[in-house]
C-alpha cells in the first residue's frame, strides 16, 4: 500500500481500490459498505428522520483523549442525540493531502471504526479524494448522520421556558484546553484529556425518565457561554447561571489562567446542556450522575422571563455580570 498517500489513491483506479480494500474496509466492517455500491440502500424508517452534517478540520490530528476520527463520529452522533434522535447511520467523506503518512490515516480510520462500534452506529457510505500537497492540511473529514426521533419527543432550542432548570452533564473546557495545551507545548504531569464521547446513551437514559426535556445542546465551539446565549436568543428568555455550580477540572482551570482563556468559552466534545421543567430536574440529575458520562453533572442555573436574550453569571463573590457571546476567533481549528 505504500507509506504515504498519493494523488492516485483518490483517482478511482487500482491504487484507490487498494486503499479501500487494505485500509478502509479492513476497519470499517459494515455489510452495506462492503457491497461497494454507489449508494447504500437501507431499511425503511418508521418515524421522523433526523439528519445532520459536519466537517472536521481539527489541528493537531491526534490529541490526548482522541483524534479527528473519534471526533468525527462523536460530533455527528451528538448532533443527532441533541434532538433526541437515536443515531442509526453515518457517512464519512475524506479529503486527504498528498504526502499524508499512511500510518496516520490508518490510525484515524481504526479510531472511527472503534468509536462507531461504541456508539452503536453504522458507517454505511464513504468517499475519498486526494488533493495536491498544500491544498489541504493533512486530513479533513466530512460526515452526514441519520437518526430516528421517537414519538412524543420534541426537543428544540426554542423550547426553554421561564422556571426551567439548567443542567450540565459534567466539567467544561477539557476538549478546548486539551487542544490548546498541545499547541502551546504545555505539558502537565497528567495531560488534559479531551472529553470527546458519544452522548446518545446518556440522552436515551435521560429521556426514559423525562421525555419532556425542553432543550438539549452539546457545548462545542464557543463552549457553554455560546450555547446558553444561543438558547436565550432562540427561546427569547433570560438565563442566570451560578459560577460556583459549574464544574471545571483543576488542570483545565490552571491552563486557562496561564493561557488567558476562560473555560466557559472553551469547546467540549462530550458534554451537554439540558433545560428541563423544574419538577424533573432532581430526577434527571440522579439519572445523569448514574451514567458514566454524567458523573459530574450539576444544576447550574435557571431560566427566567427577565432580560430576554441575555445570560447573567453570578460569581462566588455574590456579584453578577453578563456572560456574552464569544467575540472573534478565540480557538481556531478546535474541531
Amino acid at each position, binding site marked *: 500500500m505504500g507509506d504515504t498517500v498519493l494523488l492516485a489513491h483518490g483517482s478511482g483506479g487500482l491504487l484507490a481500490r487498494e486503499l479501500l480494500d487494505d485500509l478502509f474496509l479492513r476497519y470499517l466492517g459494515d455489510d452495506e459498505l462492503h457491497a461497494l455500491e454507489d449508494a447504500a440502500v437501507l431499511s425503511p424508517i418508521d418515524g421522523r428522520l433526523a439528519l445532520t452534517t459536519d466537517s472536521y478540520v481539527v489541528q493537531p490530528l491526534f490529541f490526548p483523549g482522541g483524534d479527528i476520527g473519534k471526533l468525527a463520529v462523536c460530533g455527528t452522533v451528538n448532533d443527532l442525540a441533541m434532538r433526541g434522535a437515536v443515531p442509526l447511520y453515518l457517512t464519512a467523506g475524506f479529503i486527504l493531502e498528498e504526502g499524508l503518512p499512511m500510518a496516520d490515516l490508518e490510525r484515524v480510520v481504526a479510531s472511527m471504526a472503534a468509536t462507531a462500534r461504541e456508539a452503536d452506529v453504522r458507517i454505511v457510505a464513504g468517499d475519498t479524494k486526494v488533493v495536491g500537497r498544500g491544498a489541504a492540511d493533512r486530513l479533513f473529514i466530512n460526515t452526514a448522520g441519520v437518526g430516528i426521533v421517537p414519538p412524543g419527543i420534541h426537543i428544540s432550542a426554542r423550547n426553554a421556558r421561564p422556571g426551567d432548570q439548567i443542567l450540565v452533564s459534567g466539567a467544561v473546557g477539557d476538549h478546548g484546553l486539551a487542544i490548546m495545551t498541545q499547541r502551546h507545548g504545555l505539558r502537565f504531569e497528567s495531560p488534559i484529556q479531551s472529553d470527546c464521547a458519544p452522548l446518545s446513551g446518556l440522552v436515551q437514559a435521560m429521556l426514559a425518565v423525562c421525555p419532556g426535556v425542553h432543550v438539549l445542546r452539546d457545548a462545542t465551539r464557543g463552549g457553554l457561554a455560546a450555547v446558553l446565549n444561543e438558547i436565550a436568543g432562540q427561546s427569547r428568555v433570560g438565563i442566570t447561571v451560578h459560577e460556583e455550580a459549574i464544574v471545571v477540572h483543576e488542570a483545565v482551570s490552571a491552563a486557562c489562567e496561564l493561557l488567558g482563556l476562560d473555560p466557559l468559552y472553551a469547546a467540549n466534545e462530550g458534554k451537554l446542556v439540558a433545560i428541563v421543567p423544574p419538577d424533573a430536574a432532581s430526577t434527571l440529575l440522579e439519572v445523569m450522575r448514574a451514567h458514566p458520562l454524567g458523573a459530574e453533572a450539576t444544576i447550574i442555573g435557571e431560566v427566567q422571563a427577565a432580560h430576554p436574550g441575555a445570560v447573567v453569571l453570578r*460569581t462566588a*463573590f455574590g*456579584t*453578577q*455580570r*453578563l456572560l456574552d457571546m464569544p467575540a472573534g476567533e478565540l480557538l481556531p481549528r478546535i474541531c
Partner: protein
Amino acid sequence: MSQQGFRPQAFRDPAAAQRLIAAAKAAVAEPVAIMEFCGGHTHAIMRFGLRDALAPEVRLLSGPGCPVCVTDDADIDLAIALASLPDVTVATFGDMIRVPGTGGSLADARARGASVEIVYSALDALDLARNQPGANIVMLGIGFETTAPTIAAAVRVAADEGLANFCVLSLHKLTPPAMRAILDGGVVRVDGVLGPGHVTAITGSDAWSFLPERYGVPCAVSGFEPLDILLSVRDLAVALAEERPAVINAYRRSVTGQGNLVARQLMDEVFVLGDARWRGLGVIPASGLDLAPAYAAYDARNRSAIELPPAGAGPHARGCRCGDVLRGVIAPPECPLFGRACTPAKPVGPCMVSAEGACAAYYRYGRSPS
C-alpha cells in the same frame, strides 16, 4: 510542603473577602480614591466585582499600567512599516497584533502580506532568528519593568551568539515616571496607589518610596488574587485614616525591598534611559528604555531608514478617549464609543484590545443586563 495550600482558591475565599471589604470601608472617614496602576489589577478587580463591592467609601480608578495601551500611534505605525519591509519579520507578543495605529493594525498588515509572528517569549524570537538566517527578525519590545529584563536577556544572548539577524525595537517604558506624571498633572485626585506586583518584583518596593515621601501618598504593592488586592486596599485605607503614608509591601511572597538585582543589572547594561511618548500622557522625560550604545547593533532603529510619521495624528479624531481612561479621568463606560462603536470585536483604541486594557476588562466583566 503541602500543595493544598497554594491553590488559587485559598486566595479567593469569599468570607475572608467580605471581612477585608468591611474593614476597608470602616477605616475611612470620608470617601477615598485609590488608583490601581496595573491593568492586571483592573482585570482582577472587574472579574471579582471588587469595584462595586468597595464603593462608595473606596473608589478605585484604573491607571496607565497597560503597556500595549500606552504605546503611541507613531510607534505602532513604525512597527507596521518595519514589518512591511522585505526580509523583515516582526515578532510581537499576541496583544499588540490587533491594536490599531493610524492606518490599521499589525494583523491588518499581515493580511496584506507583511511578515508578523506572534511569540510568547523573547526566546521564541531568538529561535526565529536562528532558524531563518535569511530573515531579519525585529522583536517588538513592549512592556514595563517586568518584560524589559526578558528582552535584555534576549539581546545579551544574541550578542553572545553573534546572532546578526536579530534586533529589538524598544518601546519599553518605566512605571514610576508615569505615576509621577499623573500626580503632577493634578487632574485626578489620587489618595492612594495600588502598586503593580510583578513590576515591583523586579524593581523592588523601595522604588515607590517617592510616593509617600514626595507626594504624601501611601502605596501598597499588591499581588493579583482578589484577597491580595483587598488586603492591599484595606492596608491603604488604614494608612489613610491614620495619616501615615508609607510604602506597604503586601506581596511579600514575591516582592522584596530591592527586587530582582540580576534583572535590574541586565536592564542597566542593555538599556539606557530616554524620553518616551505615552498615549494619554504625552512625552515623559527619562521614562523609556533605548538600546545602550554597546548594543547598537541590536537596535532596530539603527537598521532602518524609515521616516517616522508625525506624532499626534490618530484615533483622537475618531472620538477615542483611551488617553483619558489611562489617566483615570474617566471610567471606560463614560467614553461615548464604549460598547457601541468600540467593542472587543471591533476596537477603536488599544484599551479595548489588550487583555490588560481597562475598557476590555469593563466590557467583559462590568456589564449587567439593563
